C-alpha cells in the first residue's frame, strides 16, 4: 500500500482519541449507551488503525502479542474471580456483592463498572490479537 503524509499524520493523531473514546465507552457503560464489548472493539480498532497505517512492526512494538495474550487470559481469570466473590459473599455466582445503598442517590454500580472494564480490556486484547496475527500472516 502506498503511504502518504496525510494518511500517516491523520492516523497518528486519530489513534489516541480512539483509545480515549474506547475507555470512555468502557467506564460510562452503566450510564449511557456503550459497554464492555463496544468499548473493547473501539480500542481494538485504534490498534488496527495504527497497524494498517504505520506498519505492523510499529503496532507490535507498542502492543506486543505476548502482552495482549497475557491481558486476555488475565482478564478472564479476574472475571471468574469477580464471579466467585459473589459466591463467597452469599449472593450467588456473578451476583452483586456490594451492599444495597440506604440513600436513593447512591448507586451500587461498582460491580457493573468492574465487569465492564474487565470485559472491555479482554475484548480489546482478543480482537486486536486476532487482527495483528492475520495481518502478519498476510505479509
Amino acid at each position, binding site marked *: 500500500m502506498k503511504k502518504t503524509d496525510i494518511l500517516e499524520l491523520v492516523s497518528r493523531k486519530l489513534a489516541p482519541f480512539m483509545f480515549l473514546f474506547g475507555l470512555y465507552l468502557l467506564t460510562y457503560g452503566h450510564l449511557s449507551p456503550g*459497554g464492555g464489548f463496544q468499548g473493547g472493539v473501539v480500542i481494538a480498532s485504534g490498534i488496527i488503525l495504527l497497524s494498517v497505517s504505520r506498519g505492523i512492526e510499529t503496532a507490535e512494538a507498542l502492543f506486543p502479542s505476548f502482552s495482549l495474550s497475557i491481558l486476555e487470559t488475565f482478564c478472564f481469570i479476574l472475571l471468574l474471580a469477580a464471579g466467585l466473590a459473589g459466591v463467597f459473599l452469599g449472593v450467588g455466582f456473578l451476583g452483586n456483592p456490594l451492599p444495597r445503598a440506604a440513600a436513593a442517590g447512591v*448507586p451500587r454500580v461498582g460491580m*457493573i463498572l468492574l465487569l*465492564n472494564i474487565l470485559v472491555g480490556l479482554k*475484548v480489546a486484547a482478543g480482537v486486536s490479537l486476532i487482527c495483528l496475527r492475520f495481518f502478519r500472516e498476510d505479509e
Partner: protein
Amino acid sequence: MIHRGRFYGGVILRILLVLLVGGFLYLALRGDPETGSPIRDYILRRGTEDTGALNLVTSIYLGYRAFDTLGETLVLLLAVSGVLLFTEGKK
C-alpha cells in the same frame, strides 16, 4: 445486446427480494403491542435499583444476565486461542 435480458431479470429479482425483506421488517416493527410483557415492566421498575446501572441494557447484560456475558467472553477467548493455535508455526 445479448445479456440485457439477464441483466433486467437480476434487477427485478433484487427489487423483489428487497420488497420481501422490507415487508417482513414492516410486519415486525409495526409498533409496540398494547400489553407490555411482565419482565419488561419489572426491569423498568426495578432494574436501576437492583443492579445500580442507569442504562437498563447494561443492567440486563451485566446484572441479571451476567452469566451470558461470561459465556460470550469465553467464546471470544476460545476463538483467539484457536487463531493463535492454527497460525502458530507460520511466521
